[in-house]
């Protein structure tokens, strides 16, 4: 179960609270996955008591205060939610999956979520296996993706190291790269990893489209051990 409480002493109009929280949660707590199971109890609450003073942030998404607070809350909840992924049961990896150049945000998000939930992607990451075929497979079976978003000939997959070194291309426009297995293994030794899926603009081929991000962890032996006797 995921639970969370966020408190601020900023004054926020009651009518603004829901919109601010929904925006932040959709880009943070609703964009993480440990094991793909949704609990009966998940709850995130936001409380604002206004004790610090000043004028209340209005329920107007175009107001400068609303925009500023939305950015603060979104960034803040992203940091908070990422701690949950880092503490995923049995997790040894913290993985960011970024689906970019999509003609449609919702489809990009569905693809990111599917990759984040794939047991085979997650076990490969645990085993430090650069198995991009499983990533591609998950992209391909994602349900609810708009027609024309995924075009195999425009799809590219790469690993982005956290140390700033050049990305490792695994698949470019549907064509497999010759993977330097030693370098792939070195990248996968790190706790943090970013997987970049570039949809190349889909059927229209227009780059600069929508981007969706998910954070997830790997699946390890320990996950099974923990959950084999959770109740007893």
């Amino acid at each position, binding site marked *: 179960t995921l639970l969370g409480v966020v408190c*601020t002493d*900023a004054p926020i109009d009651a009518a603004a609270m829901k919109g601010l929280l929904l925006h932040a949660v959709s880009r943070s*707590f609703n964009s993480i996955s440990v094991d793909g199971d949704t609990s009966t109890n998940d709850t995130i609450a936001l409380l604002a008591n206004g004790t*610090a003073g000043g004028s209340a942030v209005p329920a107007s998404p175009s107001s400068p205060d609303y925009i500023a*607070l939305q950015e603060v809350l979104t960034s803040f909840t992203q940091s908070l939610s990422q701690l949950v992924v880092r503490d995923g*049961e049995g997790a040894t990896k913290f993985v960011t999956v970024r689906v970019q150049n999509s003609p449609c945000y919702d489809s990009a998000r569905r693809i990111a979520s599917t990759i984040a939930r794939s047991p085979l992607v997650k076990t490969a990451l645990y085993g430090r296996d650069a198995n991009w075929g499983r990533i591609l497979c998950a992209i391909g079976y994602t349900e609810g993706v708009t027609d024309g978003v995924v075009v195999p000939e425009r799809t590219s997959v790469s690993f982005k190291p956290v140390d700033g070194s050049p990305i490792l291309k695994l698949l470019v426009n549907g064509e497999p790269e010759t993977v330097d297995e030693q370098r792939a293994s070195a990248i996968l030794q790190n706790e943090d990893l970013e997987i970049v899926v570039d949809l190349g603009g889909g059927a229209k081929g227009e780059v600069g489209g929508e981007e969706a991000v998910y954070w997830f962890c790997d699946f390890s032996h320990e996950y099974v051990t923990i959950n084999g006797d959770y109740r007893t």
Partner: protein
Amino acid sequence: IATSRNQVRFYNVLHDTSIPDAKRKHIPSDGTYPKGFRVSGTHVGVKASNTKFPDLALISSDEPCNAAAVFTTNKFQAAPVQVSKATLNSRQGKGVQSVVINSGCANAVTGKGGLEDAQSMGATVDKCAGLSEPSTIVMSTGVIGQRLPIAKILDKIPTAHSNLASTHNAWLATARSICTTDTFPKLISQTFTLPSSPGITYSVAGMTKGAGMIHPNMA
């Protein structure tokens, strides 16, 4: 079987010695906490095996808060989810003053009795704060399908209320008290300013828990 494996993490309350070295860097040594909020983590023993570690969190504001929450979209919504939604709706997002959370038992799929338990948790917190209207959001986490040891919880809510404090240690103890299989408490805080009030420094603090059954889809 479990004890024969070095890597096992028991479903148990979190205590300092169980925090892996690699995770300690995620635990803050201090923080900047919002004015007017006080918090506490209190031992109840929701799980009988827990004889000393805090498992009841209380987050309370000295002033009424505007509030919003998102909840699981799972069809089997736990009792505290149903009760908290009703509270927020009845108050139209205003006048919320506390959040009470127990770990060790989810109070999910517990029928009418579970709903009554969740309501009584909130009502007891409100009574301690001298409030007559429902003003508390209730949360629970732990095993599904078991009733809360509600008498033990209600007995300790006054203690939780009297222990409310605004120190970093209090915030950390509160974050720790909501943990289940988590290996470390998850707490962060920061300051910020807003364009219309550049001279005022605001604070935001948040705590979260979760390690398994995590693929949230809240609305």
